């Protein structure tokens, strides 16, 4: 056990934990977050995805001790009560079926568009390829990413500015 300090969604938490514990269990069970979810524990499906310093990261295989930067989870995307354009597009397109994987879909898309707001259709497919959905909402996810992309590009860079420590 050792003391570890995590910065999550703008807050700071100091925890006395086994530092080898995968970040997912700390976020879910110690910090009460429920955006990231267990899907495979192998880094294959993406349901557990969080952003660490803006980089999409599979929290199920990331030892907590390896985390040195700000963590953003699904709960941290909305700012001042306003949903991120991706979240809004997800609602407008009525993307989810069961919705269990959608944390990973949204977080992966967020990192993708932050890095490349003008990603092509092919780049979106490739960028999302390792994030799995067993209800097969892929077609509608891609439509939602493009809708959010259109709005983000139209509104200019301010709409996607993420405060990252």
């Amino acid at each position, binding site marked *: 056990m050792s003391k570890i300090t995590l910065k999550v969604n703008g807050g700071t938490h100091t925890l006395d934990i*086994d530092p080898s*514990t*995968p970040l997912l*269990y700390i976020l*879910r*069970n110690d910090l*009460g*977050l*429920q*955006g990231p*979810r*267990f*899907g*495979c*524990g*192998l880094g*294959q*499906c993406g*349901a557990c995805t969080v952003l660490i310093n803006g980089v999409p990261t599979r929290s199920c295989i990331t030892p907590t001790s390896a985390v040195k930067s700000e963590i953003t*989870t*699904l*709960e941290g*995307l*909305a700012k001042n009560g306003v*949903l991120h354009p991706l*979240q809004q597009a*997800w*609602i407008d397109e*009525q*993307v*989810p*079926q*069961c*919705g*269990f*994987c*959608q*944390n990973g879909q*949204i977080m992966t898309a967020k990192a993708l568009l932050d890095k490349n707001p003008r990603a092509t259709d092919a780049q*979106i*497919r*490739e960028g*999302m*390829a*390792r*994030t*799995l*959905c*067993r*209800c*097969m*909402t*892929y*077609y*509608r*996810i*891609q439509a939602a990413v493009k809708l959010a992309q259109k709005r983000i590009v139209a509104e200019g860079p301010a709409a996607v500015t993420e405060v990252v420590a």
Partner: protein
Amino acid sequence: MTPFTKIPKQIEDELSRRNFLQSAGMLVVSLSPLASLAQTAGAQTPAAAPGAAGPYPDPNYKQLDSWIVIHQDNTATFYVGKTDCGQGTGTSFRQMMSDELDIAYDKTSLIMGSTDVTVDQGGSGGSDAIQTDGWPMRRVAAEARRVLLEMASQRLGTPVDQLAVSDGVVAVKADPSKRVTYGELVGGKRFNVALTGNNVDATTGLAKVKTVQELKMVGQSPQRYDIPPKVDGSLKWAVDVKAPGMVHARNVKPPVAGAKLVSIDTSSVQALPGFVKVVSKGNYVAVVCEREEQAINAAKQIKVNWEKPATAPFPASEDLFKYMRAAKPTSVGRPSVVGNPDAALAGAAKVIEAEYDVPFQGHTAISPAHAMADPSNGQMTIYSNDMKSYGMRNGVAEFLGMPREQVRVVWMEGPQGYGRTAADDAGFEAAFLAKELGRPVRVQWMRQEETAWDTKGPAFTFKLRGGLDAQGNLIAFDYDSQAADYNHVGYNEADTVLIAQLMGIRRNPPNAGGGATPNEMYVIPNRRMSSQVVSLPLVWETPLRTGNLRDPNGPQVTFASESFIDELAAAAKADPVEFRLKLLTAGTADDAQFKRARSIACVKAAAAAYGWDARLSPKTVGSGNILTGRGIAYSFRSQTVVAEIAEVEVNRRTGHVWVKRLVCAHDCGLVINPQSLRRTVECGMLHSVSRALHEEVTFDTEKVTSLDWNSHPTLTHMDAPAKIDVVLVNGDPNPNRPDLPHYGAGETTCKPTLAAVANAIYDATGVRIRRVPFRDARVLAALKAAGV
């Protein structure tokens, strides 16, 4: 009182609802029909919270109060005994009930599937939510409206026929300033109105439901209410439930199917941090620790000795179809015979034969099985995403030897149902462990465990023969199938769930799944359809146990039958759409619910939406690396009819198939929510594209070897089509009839897709793939063998 500190909002709502019903119900004989909530609640000590502490008697479906509560702020809450597997049925129920009650949709909320607060409508299954259960929901809401109008008539001193109601406000037609709201009439009080009906499906009051023309919300597309909390992270799912003192369990499965537990070396784990206990009974083994990651680690570390079974539990997957074809059937379905197929085949100008194979395919839900069980107060509460929560409640009560009234299942959102959670092992395991430990226990399976041991869609082999006369008319059709479906476990029974099997509990005889034959409306004068069930050597404790995988047998059977119809069309030198239409329009007098007329309408609508040009298939194979083609397939499920067209690109060099475009013409009668229906259809088709292209359970002679997303591939973003068109068809000969029924739509679209893709591959390449899945290597080998 149940010692939760983090009770999900939905559960809190349910608990307070339960308190209200129970406390009011206890005093019903001494109170007037409009006994106030305040009066009845006053008889209780609020802190006693009897709803949380139990026991949990069944809500009475013959009481209007069990279905609908009107609040003082003129809002309503509906309580229904169904669950939503992600198709938006909850939103549709609200639309239907709002319409009948005459209250604004956004003034309503809905509680689903928790056994102590909602009547037992069976949870989900068979895509019957809208088709069957929607009717009692509509009728009870209409009855509530009728009762409210009578109350308003008394209050306003005006006959009912001189009143108008809109959005929960009743007004005198001649003087709309005279008005009263539903909330003012009954808000916070009980209706105390008895309903009738011999079973829950037949529940009714005195009121009649509205005509289609009178419905306002039905047919609109309000956004699903469950989506915003799913995209902002605020929804509490079944995986999120926690309780003070809760511990975590992980299972330790036999490494070889059918292995017997010899011994457990508890010392291998008891010094690990957080270790609580090893629990075992029969061949069931679980490790319990204080923290989740500790339980995961302990389950990896524990040393268990197993004894392999004397005989191999099953053939290896590459030998499966050979085994199935040679196996003596455990049961033989009575063939359905029309005319004289043998004589017709003997006299046919052309006879063709083909064999098809579909392997076991898993549910492989995105989240493994999970549940949390709390044994507080001598009761058992299970927080679960079980789609058949009522069945789980009964099953767990029997399994634990507890009275039903002491067991409840609180249904919460979870990963896709599609049948997996109708055999919900984790809920039983959590309840068993919670009872053993006397503490709340959370169980979650690991990925490899889920992919190996979840319930499977049964493997099938098929043999089909068809005969054409000299003019190319289909005069004989002979269908025969074998299904590896001897022990089918789809219903949460106490003697079929996996933990029970591992403990040596046996149902005798097992639930045989039964064979399956195609269902289409084709008119073929001589026809035989027969089916058999075959068993693998290991019947119990097997990872190849079969369950209900989204239309349990339809995708397999329709793959064979609709591929073969295409083969016959090619042999008859006919266009595949025209060939099918000819068979459909040959006409019989038997057209219940206008299924024939609606089938014809769907095939035509799909062809029109695609822009289908009539020609022979295959088309001339092109010279480039990318070969394109299109294929159609048609089917129905219950009363819902679909025709689908797939357009594919086949890479001649790699064998890779991309389903570039999909069209579905879909007739499920009255559509409740067109947008959520379209989404369900899109995803249902893609589920079957995944089954067509990727999915197969592989195994050696000891164990399943497809264990994760590498060894068990699935559809990904790279496979998403460029275009999907969904055409909602109303093929009823009288499309505006006021009693147009609403049929189910959760599974029908899954049926024809595999055949549509196979037919498109044939159209593109001239090569017929008769074995699922159409992975690159299989397609490439077939192309090479055919010299393409």
